[in-house]
């Protein structure tokens, strides 16, 4: 058997619907015979009648409705058609979902699935990675699974958690990533993972960029360089301890992210390591991000905009020379 990242997301939702009658799925085109723009809910409306519901094109109300249901004990999963459209729901997510527990003591267990990140030809409005916006504000947990296994177990955990979770699933990984089987358990949420062991440099990454980083590490391995790669798994909370422990071993840090540079995950990672692990660093930390422009439509421009394993290799070499 072989299962893709996308199928893992569908399986996780099927399991959730099966095991917990408080769970329902709410989003544009998730229901009917259709099962979502990416088919992440294919077949679920039929298997779980009345619990996989199409919504109007109303992201604000989709999230507001989920919040109300969650406060009344349900466990809604909201699918945004693309992460980029969650900008319309941002107010409900940040100011409503993110503040309810702290203000009132009532928890708000909603899970918002954001099909994120760039793919060829998708352009400025169907390619965004929005984890930094959601992580900046208090009250939310932001997950960024990079593997089929994590896509599965983290989504199940997202729904189990009593707090609002923004679950960033990467569209590039949907079909590109396969696993043999689904695990019954994963690492605890909030814990990063050493995806590759090394001793010369630590690359900290997450989501699709984990794979570019691993490829870069492979390439550098051919030159005898041993790169350690950390997969953050969730960017909020961010597992500083695991990152610091890795930097303690390697003395060097390169943070890699697909979102825009200013204030992204990479800035936060470097700020933490610089503040808490300054003495561990043998050289200046560095970061590789997308460019600070909208995400281009044309594949030639897109591949120059997005961090590639080559760009990571180049930056890593530079860092190792210091």
């Amino acid at each position, binding site marked *: 058997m072989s299962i893709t990242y996308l199928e893992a997301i569908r399986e996780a939702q099927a399991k959730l619907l099966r095991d917990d009658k408080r769970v*329902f799925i709410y989003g544009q085109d998730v229901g009917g015979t259709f099962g979502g723009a990416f088919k992440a809910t294919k077949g679920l409306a039929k298997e779980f009648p009345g619990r996989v519901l199409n*919504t*109007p094109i*109303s*992201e*604000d*109300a*989709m*999230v*507001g*409705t*989920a*919040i*109300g*249901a*969650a*406060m*009344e*004990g*349900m466990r*809604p999963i909201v699918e945004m058609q693309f992460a980029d459209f969650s900008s319309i729901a941002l*107010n*409900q997510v940040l*100011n*409503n979902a*993110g*503040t*309810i*527990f*702290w*203000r*009132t003591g*009532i*928890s708000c267990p909603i899970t918002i699935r954001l099909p994120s990140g760039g793919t060829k030809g998708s352009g400025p409005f169907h390619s965004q990675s929005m984890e930094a916006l959601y*992580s900046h504000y*208090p*009250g*939310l*947990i932001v997950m960024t699974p990079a593997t089929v296994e994590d896509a599965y177990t983290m989504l199940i955990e997202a729904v189990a*958690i*009593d*707090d609002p979770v923004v679950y960033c699933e990467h569209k590039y990984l949907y079909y590109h990533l396969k696993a043999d089987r689904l695990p019954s358990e994963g690492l605890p*949420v*909030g814990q990063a993972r050493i995806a590759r062991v090394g001793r010369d440099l630590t690359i900290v990454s997450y989501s699709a960029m984990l794979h570019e980083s691993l490829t870069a590490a492979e390439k550098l391995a051919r030159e005898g360089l041993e790169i350690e790669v950390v997969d953050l798994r969730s960017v*909020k*909370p*961010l597992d*500083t301890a695991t990152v610091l422990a890795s930097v303690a071993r390697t003395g060097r840090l390169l943070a890699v992210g697909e979102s825009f540079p200013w204030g992204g995950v990479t800035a*936060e990672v470097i700020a*933490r390591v610089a*503040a808490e692990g300054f003495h561990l660093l043998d050289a200046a930390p560095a970061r590789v991000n997308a460019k600070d422009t909208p995400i281009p439509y044309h594949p030639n421009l897109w591949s120059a905009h997005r961090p590639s394993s080559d760009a990571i290799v180049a930056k890593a070499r530079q860092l190792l020379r210091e």
Partner: protein
Amino acid sequence: MIENFLGSTADVGYNRPMLQTARPKEKPGIAGPPHERYFDAFGWMLLARTFEEKLASLYRGGRITGGVYVGKGQEAVSVACGIFLRKGDVFAPLIRDQAGRSAFGEPLVDVARTYLGSRQGPMRGRDGNIHRGRPREGQLAMISHLGAMISVVVGSLMAKRWRGEKGFIGLTTIGEGGMQTGSTHEGLNIAAVEQVPLVVVATNNHFAYSTPNEREFACQALVDRALGYGFEGYEVDGTDLAACLDVIGSAVKRARAGRPPQLVVASILRLAGHGEHDDFSYVTEDIRKQPFARDCLQLAERFITENKLVDAETLRAWRDQAAQEVEQAFSTAQKEPVPEGTEEDWCAISTRVLCDQAE
């Protein structure tokens, strides 16, 4: 035929929304109150007015931190929003709903606590004044962004339906200004799509802060929006307590009976500043003389007196009781300790192990 009086059982079939304005019933010398909840409602109005007058004076005395927003002139509409709700219902009030909140069961001392910043208040000093709520008791804690609570109520009602609860409704309020937000639109539309038992009471008090109607919208009547969402729509004179009880009470009844979502649009003038910091000098003399500018509480009192529904003694007793309850609430709250930063754990989520450690 729609029958406005709550007493009547003749509820109606589904047809296009009827734009129906309930007018004060002026039957001179009638024997009883014009609505079975009239005296109750009057009591809540009196309590709200008394409380808010005290609050405003405390504000002027520099005793309140943050803004004070009162519902002066809107008590009739607001009380009618709260008084027909029962346990299991969901109420999402806004800034001018003291009367409705009280009528739905909010203890006055919790209001005083919120304004005075007692740590025993429902928001524990974390949030203030009009944002207070008691979600466990069905009163949601609004966020400021106008319109955002409508879809939240929709979701609560869907959850109740799924759980198999029966007979519940949701009621939420909005100003004519708030009706222009995208969030309101999406919330109203999704309510109609989900066919939840919802009543939305919109109060056109002719101003959004300082902005008059002509810079807010350009339709002839806001109630016409009901049509475009598949709501049933009604207008009401918000200065007339009996009319408010009739029209809003009927809407509540229709929602409970499983009819489409209900929109009631009340017309009124805000008889105070937007907040107590505001002198509302932008409200011209001319506007203050309009029929919609009458004071609902005075009108109700006059109606009671002129029709000799109760004697002067009783009225005075009611007033005294209100004053006493208000005194009591503030004096209790005043004695309570305030929150301290050192006692906060500064974790915004309930799953404490997942608190992020960024500084």
